[in-house]
């Protein structure tokens, strides 16, 4: 078995909210005890609704938010704590593609400069080599050489996302965090970007964490899937297990909520969740999902369910994990 490229152990990111004089300080547990591995070349789909902690988790992995508890290991190195590697080293290992290609590019930099600056910062001195690598990367993401001297506003949304992907890959990282990479794009452009991401993954042996609320996209691209709810992983497993045999009622609710006329209603309307996600400032006791759960029982209010195995490589955090089917 390959060494994991990324390993999270009991990772927690908490924020202090409020002030001591007005109402007291509260703790917002954005990420609360996440244990997760990503192997080289693997795509992990990370699913959950807004406020579940997906993006906080991504920022912690990028080294942009300090963990409150637990450890993050990237490529054999711990990135939190006193022995943490420097940002420069991290940048050569982990990169990110953002949701909004309009907001995440510098409007005053040409494509060439956006791609060449990281190379120069990371010690590629030879001008010819910088140019060759920029051109090579542009070709890989489907941009033409003469577009190198254009600015972001001269491109469409899909092309801008290609620039964003090129920027993420120019330093040859091993892991790329894709945070909703297609949700800001026109529907007719999304397939182009999804195909591109999958081609680059195979060609360059990349590992992805694909954060998305679009389960169709997640099923299409992922090798494994993790489902988050209010800061915790409630279910994880191989993509086929998660989509065909979901064991957590929340996963089932997510799948049931998808309006797809072709999706045979294998999962009944009873699987739908009621109400809305609770505030992470004041999560319900026990299983965080219980106020919305169709299977709720007394034990769900009094006890936290543990994330336990239901099958090889498939784990679910539900007291009734063996009865959900």
């Amino acid at each position, binding site marked *: 078995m390959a060494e994991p490229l990324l390993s999270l152990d009991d990772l927690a990111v908490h924020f202090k909210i409020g002030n001591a004089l007005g109402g007291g300080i509260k703790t917002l547990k954005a990420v609360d005890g996440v244990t997760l591995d990503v192997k080289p070349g693997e795509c992990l789909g990370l699913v959950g609704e807004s406020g579940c902690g997906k993006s906080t988790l991504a920022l912690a992995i990028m080294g942009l938010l300090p963990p409150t508890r637990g450890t993050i290991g990237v490529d054999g190195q711990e990135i939190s704590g006193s022995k943490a590697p420097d940002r420069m080293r991290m940048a050569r290992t982990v990169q990110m593609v953002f949701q909004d290609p309009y907001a995440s590019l510098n409007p005053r930099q040409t494509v060439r400069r956006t791609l060449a600056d990281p190379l120069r910062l990371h010690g590629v001195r030879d001008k010819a080599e910088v140019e060759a690598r920029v051109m090579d990367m542009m070709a890989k993401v489907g941009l033409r050489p003469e577009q190198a001297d254009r600015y972001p506003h001269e491109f469409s949304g899909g092309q801008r996302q290609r620039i964003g992907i090129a920027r993420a890959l120019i330093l040859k990282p091993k892991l790329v965090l894709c945070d909703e990479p297609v949700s800001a794009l026109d529907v007719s452009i999304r397939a182009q970007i999804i195909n591109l991401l999958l081609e680059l993954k195979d060609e360059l042996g990349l590992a992805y964490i694909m954060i998305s609320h679009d*389960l169709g996209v997640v099923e*299409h691209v992922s090798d494994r899937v993790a489902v988050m709810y209010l800061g915790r992983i409630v279910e994880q497993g191989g993509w086929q297990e998660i989509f065909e045999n979901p064991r957590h009622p929340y996963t089932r609710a997510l799948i049931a909520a998808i*309006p797809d006329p072709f999706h045979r209603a294998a999962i009944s309307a009873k699987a*739908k969740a009621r109400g809305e996600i609770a505030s992470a400032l004041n999560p319900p006791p026990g299983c965080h999902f219980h106020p919305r759960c169709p299977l709720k029982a007394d034990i769900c209010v009094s006890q936290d369910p543990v994330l336990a195995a239901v099958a090889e490589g498939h784990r679910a955090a539900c007291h009734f994990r063996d009865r959900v089917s």
Partner: protein
Amino acid sequence: MTGPLLKVDNLRISLAGDGATYSAVENVSFEIGRGEAFGLVGESGCGKSITALAVMGLLRRPLSLGGGRIVLDGKEIQDASAAEMRRLRGKRIAMIFQEPMTALNPLSPVGKQIAEMFVLHEGMGWNEAMDRAEDALRQVRVPSPERRIKDYPHQLSGGMRQRVMIAIALACGPDLLVADEPTTALDVTVQAEIIDLMAELCAAKGTAILMISHDLGLVANMCKRVAVMYAGRIVESQAAEAIFATPSHPYTRGLVDSLPRLGERSKRGRQRLREISGVVPSIAAYPAGCRFNPRCPSVTEVCREVVPEATPLPAEGLVRCHHHG
């Protein structure tokens, strides 16, 4: 009382800008029967939202009605005075918007915003109207409506705000509800609840729905008939099931094929997604002939020169493509 509830006939919407006038929407015709749910689907910029605004009589500069008729219940309303339209809006036709936070008045309690409808359109006194507002909130299943009527919009979650919007829109039992991306700002599980609620209440009251969305799956699930818009024109309209089963316009076919569909990968393994090449044209540079021609896989000379006429499809459908059949 015969004939369709709403008939939009040869609608043109003009956009004035940069010293020129463009046709943002042209030759758009459709009919909605009493109590029928009709979907208008397209990507951003295709003209679907401004078509909805035209129906509501809410076009403002730089947009204006360039021609065509809008007939509500046998009466032409495209030239109705501002006062007439004010009487119609809220009473006979009502609208809900994508972002409930910006559509609600932040300085007024939600109960008052609902009660206003009864006071304005039904001449009710405020006390009675507030009682009715509480009932309306109960109908849209807001918990503890007696307390919630005093809440301001910022005190409610996104899903609850959209419920309030629905309560306002349906307060006076309108004949037509125009819903412009009503769930795009919401999480998927909440979206499923709001769609169910809208469909159920409109069915109970016999309200017709004009549903505007970029999500073909969502619209096809909820509506009986669907029209697909591209670059300001309707390119195809069919019964909802037929749009997915036998899409007739290359653009519709491209959209249906390009979306990763839940369950597909299990059945057939991961197939490369079919891409629609190119980008959505901008309004200042709409191509001559069929506006989809630069992106169309089956383009020929005639497509670049001649605007395709509507070809009838079974069950009152139509497609605008030179190569149909």
